[in-house]
């Protein structure tokens, strides 16, 4: 059963648009799947390799801007941004890794946080190149209907899930976990930690960039405030993984469902404004106290709690 779970879920998701969901429902599903991709990507670097990034918006934004600038400057379809983003995000990740990966633990986290902001400010000011705060808009989106967008992001998600699973179960995955557990010990056992951390960062960046390039195509409009956002991208990415379960295959999936639905719910509360971020903060505190391994990681704990409740 467990072995077939990914196939069953993919199959069900593939059939879902056929039952005629409303546009709004489709939009929510697309967002959930997109966040799953970003969460899985972050999890590879933060969960398995132990390098907690506070700046994944950098990769998301670079992916989105690859598609956007390509469209705006050359007139080619922004869809080419998806394959092209792999190249540009890899190069950017290499540079970002070169600067930040010499830092460890909280210093790495702060370094990446700064990188995210550096990207945002740069994109705002390179007006000739990025249109600055005006942003980039697609004159017309490829489809009005959401079905195809849904299948494309589902395809990206399946690709990401399979790739990450392969990586984690390979030699590479062991190296990542060894680096997370004890970097010095890993180095003294013959693991080139700088190299493998860089690989983890590039892979994580590329998957996040794919989601970014998709976002450009799907939303049809980006600006630096949106795609390089600290709290709306970088922090939500961490929340998705923390809520779902760090270093688990299904954690980002569960986390994405909860975070997207929660964001929608909170948004519908009147006169809340940016205070919705407070709610996320409170949720994160509760998760860290009661379910430090996330919903998937601490699933047995949750089950025990409810069983106990029924018996009592």
């Amino acid at each position, binding site marked *: 059963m467990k072995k077939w779970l990914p196939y069953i879920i993919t199959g069900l998701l593939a059939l879902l648009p056929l039952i005629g969901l409303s546009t709004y429902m489709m939009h929510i599903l697309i967002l959930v799947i997109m966040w799953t991709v970003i969460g899985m990507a972050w999890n590879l670097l933060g969960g398995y390799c132990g390098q907690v990034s506070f700046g994944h918006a950098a990769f998301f934004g670079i992916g989105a801007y690859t598609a956007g600038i390509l469209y705006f400057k050359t007139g080619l379809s922004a869809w080419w941004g998806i394959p092209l983003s792999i190249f540009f995000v890899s190069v950017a990740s290499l540079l970002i890794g070169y600067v930040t990966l010499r830092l460890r633990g909280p210093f790495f986290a702060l370094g990446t946080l700064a990188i995210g902001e550096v990207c945002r400010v740069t994109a705002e000011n390179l007006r000739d190149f990025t249109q600055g705060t005006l942003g980039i808009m697609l004159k017309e989106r490829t489809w009005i209907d959401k079905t195809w967008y849904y299948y494309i992001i589902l395809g990206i998600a399946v690709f990401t899930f399979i790739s990450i699973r392969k990586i984690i179960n390979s030699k590479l995955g*062991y190296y990542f976990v060894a680096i997370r557990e004890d970097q010095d*010990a890993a180095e*003294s*056992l013959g693991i080139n930690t700088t190299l493998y951390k860089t690989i983890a960062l590039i892979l994580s960046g590329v998957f996040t960039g794919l989601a970014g390039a998709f976002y450009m195509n799907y939303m049809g409009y980006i600006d630096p405030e949106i795609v390089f956002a600290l709290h709306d991208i970088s922090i939500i990415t961490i929340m998705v993984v923390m809520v779902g379960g760090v270093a688990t295959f299904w954690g980002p999936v569960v986390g994405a469902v909860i975070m997207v639905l929660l964001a929608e719910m909170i948004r519908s509360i009147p006169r809340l404004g940016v205070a919705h971020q407070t709610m996320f903060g409170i949720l994160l505190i509760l998760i860290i106290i009661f379910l430090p391994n996330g919903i998937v990681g601490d699933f047995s704990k949750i089950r025990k709690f409810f069983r106990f409740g029924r018996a009592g």
Partner: protein
Amino acid sequence: MLEVRGIDVFYGDVQVIWDLSFSVSEGEVVALIGANGAGKSTTLKTISGILSPRKGTITFNGEDILKIKPYRLIEMGIAHVPEGRRLFVEMTVEENLDMGSLRGTARKERQRNKEMVYSIFPRLKERSRQLAGTLSGGEQQMLAIGRGLMSMPRLIMFDEPSLGLAPILVKEIFAVIENIRKEGVTVLIVEQNVKQTLSVADRAYVLETGKMVLEGTGKELMDNEHVKTAFLGV
């Protein structure tokens, strides 16, 4: 085999090792002893490349190892069993052993070496599927030593292997160290348990606040007045 010549090591601006020189020859058991903060662990970390000296040279079989990346040292035959064991606690015992044999011949001989480690520490075999973090302190130390041996080292460096262990386990660990030497592996050991260490060491160096103060054979130092008052409490 290992030659350390006049090294100065700093943590930031604070100098912790002054002009330290010593050597280890093939087949020997050499000990570095001294109180807390004498610079013993720092010396081992410098040899294994985690720290780098501002001055001085370190050679291994005539090759300058300061120029070699730390992760390559294990291929040259230097294994470091670090202080506090530094195991991968979320991996199983067996996976930890595998991590000790990632490169070169050690990788090819993995299965055979694993059998060898299991025969030295049968307890590890019983627990091969258990997570390393769930082992007792003594078992963890055995696993750390086993992981070091998996790389088929020519020189193995132990940093405080007896730390936090019950006296009976300390004895067992020292017996294992004797056995390792009999297999032809050179041993460099850092210890605060001076009495036990001097009884297994061919030669030893005494460090105080980052400087070498005494050297001699294990027996000589055991009878030395300074060592007696400072470490043995006689």
